[in-house]
């Protein structure tokens, strides 16, 4: 190990790392985001409707999940689900775990977004005798969505950066592939740096775009 950076080696391993990025990291992020968005909405609606027992249980559940580590949750699902007859691969477990974990954050974001729509909007609609369903669809939700978009975007980026957690249940996402290459060849600098740069190349523009969106929506 004379020099610190071997270009041949780097070029050699780059495709494998990139492939893992596209096939796993990106895919996982997208799938988990969808799950988080949908399930989060479900949680938010249940809480909003103040269903007698269910709403409180959900609230407690959200708080609990948000405060506990993803790796532990991953292990929990990975080892416990088969006991209940749910036999799925590690990647599926990972996607659902990440998705559900972030659904708990999304639920909060939705709630805050709806709360942020000024009460006066509701009252004005009542005064004009506009039916509730219409109010939701055309007045409240559009405004709520504008409020939540930046936060949702931020959580997607967070999720993206936490996909490597899935390494603990042996999902072959990019970081585990990079680490594997490193340990096989006893040269860690190149694969890890490449993985890091790919992450940076993906997340930094996304973060910048998100900040611009925030400013445009008047949230800066």
């Amino acid at each position, binding site marked *: 190990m004379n020099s610190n950076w071997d270009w041949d080696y780097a070029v050699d391993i780059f495709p494998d790392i990139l492939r893992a990025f596209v096939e796993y990291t990106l895919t996982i992020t997208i799938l988990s985001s969808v799950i988080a968005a949908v399930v989060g909405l479900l949680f938010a609606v249940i809480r909003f409707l103040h269903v007698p027992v269910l709403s409180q249980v959900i609230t407690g559940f959200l708080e609990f999940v948000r405060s506990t*580590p993803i790796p532990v949750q991953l292990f*929990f699902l990975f080892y416990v689900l088969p006991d209940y007859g749910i036999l799925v691969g590690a990647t599926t477990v990972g996607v659902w775990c990440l998705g559900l974990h972030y659904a708990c954050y999304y639920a909060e974001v939705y709630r805050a977004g709806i709360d942020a729509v000024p009460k006066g909007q509701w009252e004005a609609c009542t005064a004009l005798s506009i039916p509730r369903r219409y109010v939701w669809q055309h007045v409240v939700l559009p405004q709520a969505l504008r409020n939540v978009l930046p936060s949702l975007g931020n959580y997607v980026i967070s999720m993206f950066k936490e996909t490597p957690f899935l390494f*603990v249940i042996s999902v072959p996402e990019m970081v585990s592939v990079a680490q594997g290459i490193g340990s096989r060849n006893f040269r860690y600098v190149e694969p890890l740096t490449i993985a890091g740069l790919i*992450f940076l190349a993906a997340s930094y523009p996304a973060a910048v775009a998100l900040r611009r969106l925030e400013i445009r929506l008047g949230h800066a």
Partner: protein
Amino acid sequence: MSDYNLGPWLDDFAHGLWVTIYLTVVSAFFALVLAFVLGMLARVRHIAPRTFARIVIELFRGTSLLIQLFWFVFAFPVIVGIVWTQPVIPVIIALSLNFGAYGAEVVRGAINAVATPQWEAAVALNLTPFQRMRRVILPQAVPLMIPPFNNLLIQLLKSTPLVILIPGVLDFLSVGELYRRSETTHYVSLYIAELVVYFLLAYAFTLILRALEARAKARVGRAEPRRKIFSFRGPSPEEELPAEEKALA
């Protein structure tokens, strides 16, 4: 209880828990220092230090913590030509840098959030920039920083189980896994118990930080009615005006 065979494991679990807390607290300390250094560097007028801070911040925010962990454990020693005698050290370095970068944004944001009029009053009184920051701005910015810091601290705690992938560092989850592999039963209760332990730790940290926040707010005259455990009397505006005003007219 006998088939759990916890007895011989209790010491190990206790040690694992200690490592988790130790990692969290020590990294949090360094992260805090870094947050202030980077956060304030990022606001300086000179373009060189400001850009440097920006690059460090974006670098550690834009890449994944796990990569940073592996990088410091495996790649860094090769580049610098050293060997880690204690694997905890690169872990703490990575955690501190990562969360320090996020913390820097909190510091920067909070300082910016202190209303401009306070800056102006300090300028009008001819205080130097250093005096302004230390005596007027920071005391008002700190209470604003604490809730986001609380979030970051909890995230830090939640990241510590990643060390299960780092040979040589045995945190609470690592011990749990060793236990599970050797005792091989009762997954559900084991993991639920682990989750509860982490939850309690998170809750404890939150309580401590809420107490700190309350104290910091009181110093700025914004004491609030407390939320859960502490009782707090906030000062209320005095109503003596009519007599005073009349005396002056």
